């Protein structure tokens, strides 16, 4: 044969169907297009309706599958060593629940963020400071007409919008926002932790 198959495993995937194929978890390349398509449609695992909806699969399992289907081929793995497969919820009921969850988290962040700023201002004694600055600049007892409070609020808004780099759907630059970066990093850490844990518990789907 002498064919070489190159596979690149993803780190984590989310699958809707009950059957997980090789094409869901990895990208595959080999010179023979027909063979490539065959490999992509090989079944890695089938979800059963038990509670555990996350599976960790080792790259060796994929290699074993390909080696069984095409004995004698050389297989090159160029990617992650383990993949986390998550079975995503079906549409309908899941969609509705998701909307409620998003609304709830939005409410908590809206009110929580607002109150956190107030708590911060209170903690550092911002109003006393404003009064003191009015005294220093305008002279004692002169009314500042709330000019600093107003400009402080506007500055706060500008600072937040610049920091997050977008507001609403209007966005400057193509960079991901700080929270998006933080989210991806967090997901990466969770995946790594999950792979390690399943390795320790021996629930990883591996060749031996």
């Amino acid at each position, binding site marked *: 044969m002498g064919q070489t198959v190159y596979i690149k495993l993803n780190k984590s995937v989310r699958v809707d169907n009950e059957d997980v194929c090789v094409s869901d978890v990895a990208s595959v390349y080999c010179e023979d297009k027909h063979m490539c398509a065959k490999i992509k449609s090989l079944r890695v695992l089938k979800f059963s309706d038990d509670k555990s909806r996350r599976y960790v699969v080792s790259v060796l399992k994929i290699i074993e599958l390909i080696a069984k289907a095409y004995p004698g081929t050389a297989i090159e793995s160029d990617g992650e060593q383990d993949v986390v497969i998550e079975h995503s919820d079906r549409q309908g009921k899941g969609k509705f629940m998701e909307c409620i969850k998003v609304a709830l988290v939005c409410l908590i962040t809206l009110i929580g963020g607002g109150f956190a700023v107030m708590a911060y201002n209170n903690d550092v004694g911002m109003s006393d400071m404003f009064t003191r600055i009015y005294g220093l600049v305008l002279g004692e007892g002169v009314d500042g007409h709330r000019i600093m409070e107003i400009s402080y609020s506007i500055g706060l808004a500008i*600072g*937040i919008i610049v920091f997050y780099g977008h507001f609403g759907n209007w966005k400057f630059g193509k960079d991901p926002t700080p929270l998006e970066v933080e989210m991806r990093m967090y997901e990466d850490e969770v995946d790594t932790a999950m792979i390690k844990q399943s390795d320790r518990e021996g629930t990883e789907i591996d060749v031996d």
Partner: protein
Amino acid sequence: MWIKYLFLALGGLCAGGIVAAGFFAFITAIGVITTYAQRTHTARHIMAYENALAAGAILGGAWWSLGFRLSFGGLNGFMLIVYGLCYGIFVGSLIIALAETIKTIPIFFRRAKITMGLSTVIIAFAVGKCVGNLLYYFFDMAP
């Protein structure tokens, strides 16, 4: 005189910008919102959470420093409960996230050579915080 007002306005503007940058870098880095998104499996909507957080902070900051009255008529009591609950949840997660950045619980577990009962410890942690908070407010410990 107007130059002084201009100076004050400029000062306020800069103060707001810097406070926002520092404060929100803190909230972002501490990872409360990312944890919410992960727990509820709604990482796709992270943009909406950012908008909510930004809007909340802008409105909250304006509300606090300008001190206008916000009334919901007959719903005032209910709104206060909603405010309190949401802020409580937020601060609760903030406290734990803060403790987690220096890895208190894992280090303690490792040092004490405990290998089980993590969930019990976390529940005890939460109950302790709740009881402590109630004591603080109902036994005149608040200033």
